[in-house]
């Protein structure tokens, strides 16, 4: 599928003519060397990325790594020194003022870290700002702004001024201002950075909820990995102006590309990142229609396990333990009579965190999709293994 936003070979050099600095970068010089040689600051160097329609693309990195520079290139607040950036088919790095204005008015809205609300306008006027700029009639834009304010839970505060609201509320106004113009793309530069942790958590949940209902393409900047993992469909990690790694939360935490990324992910609660599917083993179920208790016993002996799942007409029907199977075999009973349905199940998307309570039972956890089909099984010991992974790796490193 065609990406919604496509950045290709982007550079940004602050402080005058960029050609020499770019040549030096291409020759392999570092940010510091270039600063020493030319006095110029490298903001972003050779960055390429794709953002698919409807995803939350999170950019994270330490302070000064170029996140803000990158996101500001998307709506042309900063012109790249080199490279192109396509929104649908418009190259915002190289288009007329008129075209750029059109993109900003109709396609891309931005939410700012320090809110950047207009202090001389009421909350409702702030929310309607983008619409007013676009030239919409007063009555219509009042309606739309009100709807956006209601979306963020501030329907009753339209007549207040921003300085009468708390930080969390102000950021909601910022969000409403972005949503009111119904953009296809929402750029958010550390929007929750100035909020305290509790409100921050609420806002993250609300953003996910909004995302589910409105299906916007969101580029989200943060320097908090937990936030990145909680929100990101795709996460790009930046260091010194380059993207060190792009991937899903599991890819970033599970196989960090280098020490820099690994250092970020070290203190992460892995159980919040990994889904059950990541540690699932392929299921080898028996079929009620064709297999009997004896087959069950042989299968378990072959695989060295004490219980095996059984499906009926494609659907998970139950589990049979070795003891039950041998009893049934001895008494000449059907496999059906040896089944028990007292076993844990979970969806493949559920996080390891949610598997903890299930991992205490004697049976493996069955992963079933929404149609009730068995997609895999999780052995309790694998859960703890995966969570312990990181520490072991580190110990090994220390030994080496």
């Amino acid at each position, binding site marked *: 599928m065609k990406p919604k936003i496509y950045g290709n070979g982007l550079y940004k050099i602050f402080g005058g003519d960029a050609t020499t600095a770019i040549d030096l970068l291409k020759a392999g010089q570092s940010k510091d060397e270039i600063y020493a040689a030319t006095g110029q600051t490298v903001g972003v160097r050779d960055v390429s990325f794709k953002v698919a329609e409807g995803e939350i693309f999170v950019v994270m990195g330490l302070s000064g790594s170029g996140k803000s520079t990158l996101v500001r290139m998307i709506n042309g607040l900063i012109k790249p020194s080199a490279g192109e950036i396509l929104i649908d088919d418009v190259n915002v790095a190289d288009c007329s003022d008129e075209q750029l204005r059109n993109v*900003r008015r109709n396609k891309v809205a931005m939410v700012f870290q320090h809110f*950047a609300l207009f202090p001389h306008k009421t909350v409702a006027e702030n929310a309607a700002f983008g619409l007013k700029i676009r030239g919409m009639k007063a009555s219509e834009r009042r309606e739309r702004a009100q709807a956006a304010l209601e979306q963020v839970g501030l329907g009753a505060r339209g007549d207040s*001024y921003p300085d009468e609201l708390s930080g969390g509320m102000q950021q909601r106004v910022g969000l409403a201002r972005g949503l009111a113009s119904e953009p296809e793309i929402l750029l958010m530069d550390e929007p929750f950075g100035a909020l305290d942790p509790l409100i921050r958590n609420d806002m993250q949940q609300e953003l996910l909820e909004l995302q589910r209902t409105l299906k916007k393409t969101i580029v989200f900047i943060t320097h908090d990995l937990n936030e990145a993992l909680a929100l990101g469909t795709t996460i790009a990690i930046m260091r010194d102006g380059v993207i060190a790694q792009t991937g899903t939360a599991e890819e970033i935490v599970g196989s960090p590309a280098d020490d820099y990324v690994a250092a970020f992910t070290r203190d992460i609660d892995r159980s919040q990142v990994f889904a059950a599917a990541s540690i699932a083993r392929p299921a080898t179920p028996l079929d009620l229609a064709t297999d009997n208790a004896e087959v069950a016993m042989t299968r378990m002996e072959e695989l060295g396990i004490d219980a095996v799942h059984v499906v009926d007409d494609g659907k998970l029907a139950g589990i049979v333990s070795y003891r039950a199977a041998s009893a049934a075999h001895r008494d000449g009973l059907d496999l059906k009579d040896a089944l028990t349905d007292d076993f844990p199940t979970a969806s493949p998307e559920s996080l390891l965190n949610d598997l903890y309570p299930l991992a205490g039972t004697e049976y493996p956890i069955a992963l079933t999709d929404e149609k009730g089909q068995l997609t895999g099984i999780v052995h309790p010991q694998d859960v703890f293994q995966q969570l312990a992974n990181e520490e072991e790796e580190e110990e090994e490193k220390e030994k080496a």
Partner: protein
Amino acid sequence: MISPSDFLSLPFDDWVNIFVRDWLVPNFRPVFRAMQWPVTQVLNGLSTFFNATPMLIFTAVLSLIAWRTSGRGVAIFSLIALIFIDLIGLWPETMTTLAMVITAVFFCVVIGIPFGVMAARSDIFRTILRPILDVMQTIPSFVYLVPIVMLFGVGVVPGIIATIIFALPPIIRLTDLGIRNVREDLIEAATAFGATPWQMLVEVQFPLAMRTVMAGLNQTLMLALSMVVIAAMIGAGGLGLTVFTGLGRLDVGNATAGGVGIVLLAIILDRISQSLGEARAMRGPSLLATIRSLFSLRANKPPAEVERAG
């Protein structure tokens, strides 16, 4: 003692004479006459209006305005001051002076705000404008009365034009400063939503600069009042003339009465115009913050590299 003038003397005065009398005046007379026209219209309108308004009504209305904008104290002060002016027999002169001052301030606003906006938008324009404003403020006002008289003749309108020139700099400077001090992140936000330069000015920059612009207006008003006596020297009337003739005849009483009238008028206008700038609707940065940033303008200047397209 030897001095350079023993060897060379420059006929500077002749040069100026030739420039002004033989070139500027004959060639540009019509231009200067035309410039007087709008000033005359505004002045006549205001003057007729103020002189036709009965004293009691005028006093009541001005006190009411003072009360609404600046509170009870200023309102009571205005009431007493205006009655006092009437009692000492200077009411008509005060109205004339008020008409002159307001005319001058009106043109200062009409000229000064666009210049201030342009200066805020363009560093080049500002660099050119600055020394001109410095000169306008440092030349003693007596000095340019002469060319004014040569170009415009004598009378009330030339007096007002001298006043405009003298009182113009603060409003230009503070409009420029106010706009430049609008928070960078708000400019960025407006740009991000696709504002045109004009929308930026009307929606964001000017409203937020309003407080500072009003401070400039206040200063301009005060400077205009301070020109009242000097303008009287070239034929402007009103309280300035009372003081001026009083001085000429060594009539201390009359001169003092005129002076007191000017001071009272100045206090009333100062208070009212100051509180206009403090009004709630103008939620700009506080004046204190603005003045503080005036002294650290260099440090606050946004890095030249913050590019803004559109």
